[in-house]
């Protein structure tokens, strides 16, 4: 039980889904409760994992890789293929958590539970909705704990299908257009990721398995023994038929595991004057910034968000966007540190552009949900900026921004959903002075908006301050980002404050006004079900705003280690490539 915690965490919604499969659609109550139970179980398992997780326990086996405190590792052979003289191919079922992924897992299970509660209002085909939602829950969480690239890719792709149907069947008026656009866009991203994945697994070997096959080491090797295998490999002493090609994402971050003369090793192939490694970095980066999304590849998001039902918007904004950021961190950056240094300017530039472009767009939006969507684009820009800085403040800020936005954006989408549920209209200009009609709702809106615009005391503030600090420091610490980027990002903060306050003023303050008389009686204050969803989210942003150490204690050490790794390895690689 205890050693299979993560497996249980991933697959508990799937088990519930299988149990619900024979229940006829007419018992919609059972399906509704099933969703909530499954996600609640996931949250409980996550809390057990959190209790067992020891942030200071360093995993010795991952020495030399980008991973610091990998724990609760579960690893079994899944598919292994003997390629004869070409060696072996091994795909593992490999899941674990570390200080980076654990906060995101906690966030996921929390937001999924809120989304499950929010799904209560779904009336049409509840059974189908419930089953798809449970599939989505499995794959979202699976994405954050999978450490085998094949498994990761499986979960990543498997998210698209439920999402496509959830938007396409239960969405708004233009749902069909939005869902197909979402699917095609994100699939295009996945294809870029797939390209890099194929190149990576054909270039990387698993030192442990290779050592076992050659008989160099035993069953539970120490770090020294692994080093020995890697050394033998680099010197070309291991026969090709003994190579174990792997999808292991941890092994992919250690340059000693790259086959000498393979296309993605440091002295790998060139296409024209560009190293193939850098092309692979860009393939991964493009793949994930489509999911993040960052300008200019963000155009699917407004459509998807506006048409999606509230609960799905919550999952989309709260979790799916985070997978983009997480993917950049884990793959593009960790696996190609020298490209991360080389192209830091570009990544930072994309971040700043996203911040500003998203904010200006948000200012211009008439639809409340669209405004929040563009605000998401803007907020995700900070993630890119923080990562690009490659300083510990910047990177923890970027990660904190993902976490904090994962709490705030569901809150905002639920707010938009609450208004839409009452009047079926989301136009900002159609309302005014709602405070008088819905005072408690307004309080929560104010909390949500202030948290989003980065008021001190809320999680958004800490995240943005750390990111900006990192971006400023970068100019002196590692000279990756010019100062003006941080300046412009800070300017973005003002814009963000601008559109939130302006919306607040237009919709909630001033003289009471609604466009149609009939709406007045429907605009009642919050129901208890809405309180259940909104209050925990608002409380969480507050808690993580005044006690950021809750988060930073988890990510602090791994991030410090990772930043050292990135800067150290990256410079070393660059030197090697330049001297060539």
């Amino acid at each position, binding site marked *: 039980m205890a050693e299979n915690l993560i497996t249980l965490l991933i697959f508990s919604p799937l088990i519930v889904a299988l149990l619900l499969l024979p229940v006829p659609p007419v018992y919609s109550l059972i399906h509704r409760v099933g969703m909530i139970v499954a996600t609640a179980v996931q949250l409980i398992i996550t809390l057990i994992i959190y209790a067992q997780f020891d942030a200071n326990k360093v995993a010795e086996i991952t020495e030399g890789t980008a991973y610091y405190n990998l724990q609760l590792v579960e690893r079994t052979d*899944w*598919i*292994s*293929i*003997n*390629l*004869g*003289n*070409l060696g072996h191919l091994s795909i593992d079922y490999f899941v674990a958590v570390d200080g980076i992924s654990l906060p995101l897992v906690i966030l996921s299970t929390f937001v999924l539970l809120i989304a499950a509660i929010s799904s209560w209002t779904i009336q049409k*085909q509840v059974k*189908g909705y419930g089953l798809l939602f449970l599939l989505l829950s499995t794959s979202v969480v699976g994405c954050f704990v999978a450490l085998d690239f094949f498994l990761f*890719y*499986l979960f990543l*792709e*498997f998210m*698209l*299908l439920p999402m*496509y*149907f959830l938007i*396409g*069947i239960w969405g708004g008026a233009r*749902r*069909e257009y939005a*869902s*197909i656009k979402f*699917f*095609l866009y994100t*699939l*295009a991203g996945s*294809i870029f990721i*797939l*390209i890099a994945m*194929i*190149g990576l*697994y*054909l*270039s990387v070997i698993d030192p442990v398995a290779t050592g076992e096959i050659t008989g160099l080491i035993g069953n539970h090797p120490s770090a020294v023994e692994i080093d020995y295998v890697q050394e033998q490999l680099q010197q070309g002493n291991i026969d090709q038929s003994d190579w174990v090609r792997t999808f292991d994402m941890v092994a992919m971050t250690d340059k000693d595991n790259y086959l000498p003369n*393979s*296309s993605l090793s440091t002295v790998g*192939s060139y*296409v024209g004057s560009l190293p193939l490694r850098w092309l692979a970095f860009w393939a991964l980066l493009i793949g994930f910034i489509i999911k993040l999304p960052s300008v200019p590849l963000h155009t699917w998001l407004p459509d998807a968000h506006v048409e999606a039902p509230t609960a799905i918007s919550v999952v989309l904004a709260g979790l799916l966007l985070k997978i983009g950021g997480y993917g950049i961190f884990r793959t593009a950056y960790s696996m190609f540190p020298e490209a991360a240094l080389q192209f830091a300017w570009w990544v930072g530039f994309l971040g700043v552009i996203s911040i500003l472009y998203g904010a200006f767009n948000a200012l211009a939006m008439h639809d409340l949900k669209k405004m929040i969507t563009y605000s998401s684009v803007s907020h995700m820009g900070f993630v890119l900026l923080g990562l690009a800085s490659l300083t510990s403040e910047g990177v923890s800020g970027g990660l904190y921004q993902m976490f904090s936005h994962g709490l705030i954006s569901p809150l905002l989408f639920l707010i938009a959903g609450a208004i839409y549920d009452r009047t079926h209209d989301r136009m900002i200009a159609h309302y005014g002075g709602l405070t008088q009609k819905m005072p408690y709702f307004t309080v929560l809106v104010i909390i949500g908006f202030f948290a989003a615009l980065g008021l001190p005391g809320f999680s958004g503030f800490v995240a943005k301050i750390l990111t900006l600090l990192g971006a400023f420091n970068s100019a002196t610490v590692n000279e990756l980002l010019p100062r003006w980027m941080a300046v412009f990002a800070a300017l973005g903060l003002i814009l963000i404050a601008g559109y939130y306050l302006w919306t607040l003023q237009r919709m909630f303050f001033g003289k009471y006004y609604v466009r149609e008389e009939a709406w007045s009686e429907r605009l009642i204050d919050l129901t208890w079900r809405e309180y259940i969803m909104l209050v925990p989210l608002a409380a969480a942003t507050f808690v993580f705003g005044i006690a950021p150490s809750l988060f930073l204690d988890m990510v602090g050490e791994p991030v410090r280690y990772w930043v050292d790794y990135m800067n150290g390895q990256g410079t070393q690689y660059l030197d090697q490539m330049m001297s060539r």
Partner: protein
Amino acid sequence: MEITVNLANDLRIILRSATWLWPEVTLAIGLMVLLLTDLVMRKKRGGLFIGVLLLTVLTSGYFLLQQWSLLSIDESLPRFLNTLLVDRLGIYLKSLFSLTLLFVSLITLRTRIGSQQVGFERLDQIGEYYLMLLGITLGASLMVSSVHLLIIYLAIELVSLSSYVLVNFNFDRKSAKASLKYVLYGSAASGLMLYGMSLLYGLTGTLLLTDTVFQEGLQAASPLLSSLAIGLTISGFLFKVSAVPFHIWVPDIYEGVPTPVAAFFSVVPKLAGVGLLLRVAPILFFSTSSFPGEWLLGIIAMVTMIAGNVAALHQTNAKRMMAYSSIAHSGFLLAGILVADGWGSHTVLFYATVYLAMNLAAFWLINLLGERTNSYQIANYRGWGLRLPALGIAMLVVMIALTGLPPTAGFTAKLFIFSALWDAYQQTSQPQLLYVFAVGLLNTIVALFYYLKIPYYLFFKKSPELDVSPSPTYFSQILGKIGTFLLVTPLLLLFFKADWLLAIISQIISVL
């Protein structure tokens, strides 16, 4: 091939060779039995025909299994003075053909119960239907077991001639048009091929491709002439795998013929062509320095993928869409053949097997939906996914597999092909491999767009009114469910345990 006077010796060779020919002989005997039954019987009985067909397939399957166990990996027995080869590659592909025949029996059995009319008669009561199916299978079996130009030509013609008849089986204008188109294209292609073959014979003095004399003769010939000869010969093979520019006949055929025949066409002749190319491509394409075989095949593969996928975008008829889809898949198979030494040939065989499973499943489901809606128009599928969720989900899985997304075997198959391409690029740095790699992957996005159309209509659109046609009988429904289960499960299973199939395939040819 010298003609000896030692009759006793020849007879001995023939007799010894014949013992390895039992699978084909069984097919031929089954064919003749069917012919006689059809002639003798006044009242046509579909059950009897299906029985004979099943018996033939199972017997031939038994002999194939026996041969498989007698041979070892990489072992190749030349028979009949080198005109035929018996090896595990051939046996494996022949088993795939047998599986397809089993599928056709199953789908015909359902037709029998469901009393589906084809022209004036029920499909299962037409004796020629079974006859021609066996004829194609026999031809295809010979195609994959020879490297002798004469036998290859005869085998291809056997497949073609049987196909010409089978195509006309809807007995309507459309069917006749398709058939005529096919005959014209087919005879033009075999004419070209025959011309190429005769040039090859003239240049080298032998018909046996593996002969050293053949290689020497080809090297000695003028580059232009040898390129012309190879190009013409290959065009006949490409016609069978329906590669661009020899693909124009495909959509009309698929649309015009009954669904089981379309399923059969999409698999057996194509895989026979793939098997043939696996054998002869290294000899014809890659060994002649004067002939830019890698480039040519790479370009054909890319164009085939693009043309198939782009043309499929506009289709409104499910069977026509599947026709273009099968063209696109030919492109992927050709991409695999491009790197078909060692591991590459494993990936091609894996892809071919998965392709067979996907296509049969797709046509099976199209057939089931066709019974319900009386139509093959995708737009008429609207709402059926919600009415028959199991069928809808099965269709979704198949379409996802055809696109090449996880968690289906279609993804694994594509992953392997592209891995082989990257691996070959890593070793040889030939740029066309990288182009094929990139074009192939980007094609997946295009493919998603049209494959999703079917689930889109199944689930997103509201059904306009009540049932168009009565539901099938109870037994027929059960058979439908069993068939669906049998066809869709492998697609999921081979994703989660791809190594099971690869373990079998790795018993055929060893890597390098």
